């Protein structure tokens, strides 16, 4: 109920806001420095990942503690296609990343969705670490700890190798990534407001009842798992060319923790929550890391604080403030 109202309100009130924010984001390279644009670029990649991740976490109520696996799948796909196979077409990379991760997620998901809560978290963690060990061990294929180079991809078949790297990243590639983020956000919006999305929520809140009503709980969870994995792979594939190098560290369990952190920080109960979390996390990390070498402590403390005091995340806090004002009015 609450969510339907929220959607209705969003449609009337928040849509212009979202468009304005989107346009501001798009114009960042015009007024901000190259480095800030680069940070936003990494944000786009993470945004796509967490938006997918939240379909699983926020909507289906399944906490995956190994989701970085799929980000790594996307990133390594980009690495393989650009360096090993010399097929530097970004569209091809994206499609391949989606296919590979979807196949992998379909297999892993078929096992994982039989469990919920802590078991689901543990099983996904185990798969994430299995993949991590795989990347390290299959040295001749993946470069082991050294990882692999990711060369600059062609966008829409056009070779931009003449442009200096930062200009490319803060220009063409920036817009490219933004457009993909916008499209995927819109698609996810359609997914969560479709009957499928509503069913997921029903399953999260009361799986027995949903099963009773004829919803195939496992199948829906499985779909959600595969979709979220595909999103993560797109995020990873977009991130890889920006970084220029992929390494197994991308799929260590603490990286999966970061994705959860972002969703929680922003507020996983809200559609845009994880996006807020992602941007705040990236900006915060950027400044805190320069400030002190004990940045992990600060991040741990923030996580603890959010969990204890504001489990709704930033969006939750804003939401309740808005509600309080509305009530007063």
């Amino acid at each position, binding site marked *: 109920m609450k969510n339907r109202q929220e959607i209705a309100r969003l449609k009337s009130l928040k849509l212009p806001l979202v468009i304005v924010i989107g346009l501001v984001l798009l114009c960042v390279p015009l007024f901000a420095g190259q480095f800030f644009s680069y940070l936003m670029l990494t944000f786009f990649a993470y945004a796509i990942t967490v938006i997918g991740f939240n379909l699983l976490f926020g909507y289906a109520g399944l906490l995956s503690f190994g989701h970085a696996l799929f980000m790594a799948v996307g990133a390594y796909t980009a690495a393989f296609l650009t360096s090993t196979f010399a097929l530097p077409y970004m569209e091809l990379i994206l499609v391949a990343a989606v296919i590979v991760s979807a196949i992998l997620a379909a297999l892993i998901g078929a096992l994982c969705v039989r469990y919920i809560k802590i078991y689901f978290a543990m099983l996904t963690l185990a798969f994430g670490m299995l993949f991590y060990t795989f990347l390290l061990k299959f040295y001749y294929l993946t470069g082991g700890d*050294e990882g692999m180079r990711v060369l600059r991809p062609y966008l829409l078949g056009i070779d931009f190798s003449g442009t200096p790297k930062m200009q490319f990243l803060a220009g063409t590639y920036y817009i490219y990534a933004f457009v993909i983020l916008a499209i995927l956000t819109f698609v996810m919006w359609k997914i969560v407001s479709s009957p499928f999305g509503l069913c997921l929520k029903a399953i999260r809140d009361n799986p027995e009842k949903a099963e009773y009503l004829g919803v195939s709980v496992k199948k829906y969870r499985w779909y959600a798992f595969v979709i979220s994995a595909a999103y993560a792979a797109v995020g990873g594939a977009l991130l890889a060319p920006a*970084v220029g190098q992929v390494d197994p560290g991308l799929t260590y369990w603490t990286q999966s923790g970061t994705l959860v952190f972002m969703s929680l920080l922003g507020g996983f109960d809200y559609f845009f929550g994880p996006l807020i979390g992602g941007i705040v996390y990236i900006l915060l990390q950027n400044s805190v890391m320069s400030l002190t070498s004990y940045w992990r402590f600060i991040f741990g403390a923030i996580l603890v604080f959010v969990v204890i005091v504001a489990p709704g995340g930033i969006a939750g806090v804003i939401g309740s403030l808005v509600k309080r004002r509305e009530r007063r009015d």
Partner: protein
Amino acid sequence: MGKTRREFVKLVGGAAVGAGMLLAGRGKAQAQAKPAKGVPSGPVRIGAMPGLSGVIAVPGTAAWRTTQMWAEEVNAAGGILGRKVELSMEEETTAKDCVERFRKLTLETKCDVIVGLMSTGNGLAVGPLAEELGQLWLAWDATTQKGVVETMPRTKFSFRSTDNEAEAIGGAILTAKFFPNIKTVVGINNDYSYGRDCWDAYQAVLKHFNPNVKFVDALWPKLGETDFTSHIAALKKANADLIMTSFWSGDVPILMKQATAAGLFKRSKACFTTGGGAHYTLKKEFTPEGIILGYNSFYFKWTDTWPLLTKFVNAYYAKYKEYPVYETDHAYFVLQAYKEAVEKCYSILGRWPTKEEVGKVLSGIQVPSLSGFRGYREDNLMSCNFFMGLTSHKNPYDFVTINQMEVLTPVQIMKPFAGAKLYDWIKGWKS
């Protein structure tokens, strides 16, 4: 830049002040309050990227401490050409974050030079980036090697560390020298490229000197493993004459201790090619005498006749109650090289040089560092001596040092040029 590289270098060569003179003058140099003529007034921004967590934390901390000590010292003496040195630190973590931090130091902090990085994976990510951004990057320990192959034989801005496998080659040379009669060898190396390359290179070199030696087994604990009892059971099973390892961090004392406790060294000799990376943790109580121990390019007591070393070791110990490890000299050298390169450029150009100009002077530079003179080759790889020897208890410390110290020169243990093929080079050796 109107001049070609060759011309520029020639000019520099002509103007080059003897590095020893620079050294001698440094202590007395009047603290210049104002920047020299033609030099911008703001501080020189030096970005530093030490690894401060996980396995690289041990050398990373040492390098970061050295960097700070160096900066204090240089600032006290008036800075570089009168410009104060200002450090910006960004931690070395994953490749993704390193790229981000490197970009930040370049684009936001606007650093004149970035020093640091230890992991090869991160070096592979940052190397091309430095070239793209036109940012000087003087690596501490990171290379841009893929396995034993250098991926960036020609660089302008990135100055890489020594070849990864250098220590293993040195270790093999000394194994052949000190233990000519061993017949079997077992390896225990970390399960990542450095460990694997070291093991391969070690085998190739030892085979060269001692064709009859057999390599009976190889163990691959993952990086960061802290319990080796199981590996020691396997080492015992292998029952070899010599145990070779390229461990370099906190795992060295653990392996040493557990191996001694299990009586492993009663039967076998050992070669710890890089064990000096945590040498002060190798307590006499559990470290036997007479095994090969490598200190990489810096041994804290290699001589009494190099005042720079004595002064630094004393200052370091007074401050941190620890004896410095090899990464200190990598850190010290890159900064000193940068400073002298800038000063050389200034002596020619009469103004603060661009990054490219500094880079040109850095190629082939030789400067006095803690471990004696060391420098960059023309292919922008570090070139320095390596110190190795047999462990000894005859010293005033509670940890082992080495006697019969051997100084291995870069010519002996490093490929002659960046693009060279390692194993072809070894095959070409005359014994």
